[in-house]
């Protein structure tokens, strides 16, 4: 029974992590910016669903929640690009400066959300700092209509996950827009010389990144019994780990890594909590253990601007040779 529950958790978390990890890799490989404001998209996506749920008297359809969350996340992404990333890029700032600036943006958004939650709490009398799960009425209606008794979060995560992943696949692989985005990712200067509007495509990439990541937030509020403004931090650690395993370039490997991490996190936690009585807060340590092991055994050398260590040994051998 416990194993079945852990497997269900793994399944739902897989979709949450996939929907938030893939945009992280997509944004890095296209824009070359390691975005530390990524948790903001998840948190705001979740909170848009929560606010809608409160203002629609707990009659929120998934479609409406997804639309609003996607738009909010997307607009935050574009805003970050226009106000922070593009000016820094124009000044020739280093990737580290971009990273630090996005970290600053993370805290601005994070604490702005706290203020929004507190103001709404005073006005509506509901606690937004720890909100229970949100049920989507349209999914409930469909489930009742076809007599499907599975928990709603399985239906929601599967439906939304598949729709988003297939749409993204079609966009990137079957449309001119996707080809242009990949062109920018491969070589920005060459792509610009070929007439691809770099700025517009960058803005579009950030819109998609923010929007898709925000959708993972609406899955989170459907599944989790308690949503707080800190959820982004928990999810983003796994996102970074998955993106890192995918070498910040492969969307497929990132998706597979997200699923593998979700499974590892839940199964290992079940084992540890059963035998050692550990609390759920230790989950992050499990994920980190996996990442750290990979770092030691098989680091993705050179990924994300890393030092290509092995070259040193080869050169040393050549110099020491004949």
């Amino acid at each position, binding site marked *: 029974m416990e194993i079945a529950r852990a497997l269900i958790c793994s399944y739902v978390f897989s979709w949450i992590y996939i929907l938030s990890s893939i945009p992280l890799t997509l944004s890095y490989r296209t824009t070359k910016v390691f975005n530390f404001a990524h948790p903001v998209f998840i948190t705001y996506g979740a909170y848009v669903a929560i606010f809608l749920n409160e203002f629609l008297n707990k009659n929120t359809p998934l479609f409406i929640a997804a639309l609003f969350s996607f738009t909010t996340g997307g607009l935050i992404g574009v805003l970050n690009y226009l106000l922070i990333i593009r000016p820094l890029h124009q000044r020739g700032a280093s990737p580290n400066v971009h990273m630090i600036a996005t970290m600053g943006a993370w805290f*601005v958004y994070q604490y702005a959300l706290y203020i929004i939650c507190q103001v709404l709490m005073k006005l509506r009398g509901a606690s937004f700092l720890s909100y229970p799960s949100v049920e989507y009425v349209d999914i409930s209606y469909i489930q009742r209509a076809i007599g499907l008794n599975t928990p709603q979060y399985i239906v929601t995560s599967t439906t939304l996950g598949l729709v988003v992943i297939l749409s993204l696949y079609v966009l990137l692989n079957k449309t001119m827009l996707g080809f242009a985005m990949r062109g920018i990712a491969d070589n920005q200067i060459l792509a610009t010389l070929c007439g691809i509007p770099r700025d517009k495509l960058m803005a579009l990439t950030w819109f998609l990144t923010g929007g898709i990541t925000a959708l993972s937030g609406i899955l989170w509020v459907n599944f989790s019994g308690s949503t707080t403004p800190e959820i982004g931090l928990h999810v983003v650690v796994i996102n970074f780990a998955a993106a890192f395993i995918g070498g910040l370039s492969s969307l497929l490997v990132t998706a597979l890594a997200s699923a593998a991490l979700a499974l590892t996190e839940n199964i290992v936690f079940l084992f540890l909590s059963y035998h050692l009585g550990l609390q759920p807060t230790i989950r992050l340590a499990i994920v980190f253990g996996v990442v750290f092991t990979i770092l030691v055994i098989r680091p993705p050398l050179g990924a994300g601007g890393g030092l290509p260590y092995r070259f040193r040994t080869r050169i040393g051998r050549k110099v020491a040779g004949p």
Partner: protein
Amino acid sequence: MIDVLSFAIHWLTYFTIYAILAITLVLEAGISGITNFGKVAFFGLGAYIGAVVNTYTLLALLGYDVNTYTPFTAQGVSVLSKIAASEPIIVIMIFFMSLAISFVITGLFGRLLIYPVIRVGAGFVGFTLLSVGEILRAIYMNTHFLGGTYGMFGIPQPFTWLRSPVLSALCYLAVTFSIFLSAYILVSRIHESPLGRVLRAIRDDDVAALFLGKDVPRIKSSVFFLTSGLSGVAGALYACYVGSVNPQMFVVLVTFNVWAMIIIGGSSSPMGAVLGAALLSLVDRLLQYATPVIGGVLFSADYLRPIFIGCIMIAILVKKPMGLLPEKPPKITAGFLRKALEEIGEVNEGGCDTCD
């Protein structure tokens, strides 16, 4: 009404502790190019080590049963406060011992951690170190010995026995100031030394430095040992000053504050870090007094501070990326330049026009 003397001592103590963190971050990020987004991990680890040494060791040394008198129970805290007031020599000895232990353990932890992390890019380093901070927090929460979620209390301030609170605080300030000054001199000397030039070369292009024969991983690891150790000392100083530690004190926001300090002051300049730490710690302390006045109607004014600092940080990065005190170009004397030119055969008998 604000008591000016108490406020000044309080602010200066916070400033010196945060300045140690800011100076070490300048050495890591500004000079060596290690994007440490996990500053709080080392600060927190040092604080917990300081707390454990100053409570459990003290109790054990004086013959108390540490299973009964724990620093998270009323009787343990009561006994610790009595010891702090009556056993000055032991308390001071244990305090300095805790600083040394914090330095060694956090330094070694940093060195062990950086070994695998350093082989990947800056983004990964940042994320991995950030995660370490969160994981350590999870471990503190799950460790009964460390007080779990509630943390540890009754950590003795080494000068409590002086009776006068102002004098006691002044003595503690003298200790924190001495350590801050030592850290500042050390980092400034490193910054201006040949090692500093190597570090800046690594920061600007680690691959080029590697190909020029510099042992980049070893140099970075050594720097990280030093900076992590000093962050641990800052943590131990903080724990003894505040008198308690709990996992909520060591959140990512602490790292963000230290980053904001060095960005506002100047991320590659030790003096800039000091200036940033002074400004932000002053704003922080003033807001502590101002919060009850300006907040509480619709939302807590505490939330405004990170927003304000975040906006300033982004604005400075976009408009004045080098901060208020930018890094100065390295000092090159005429003699040094002449020697360098001689080495590459540029100086002929007529002398060198560019030397003076």
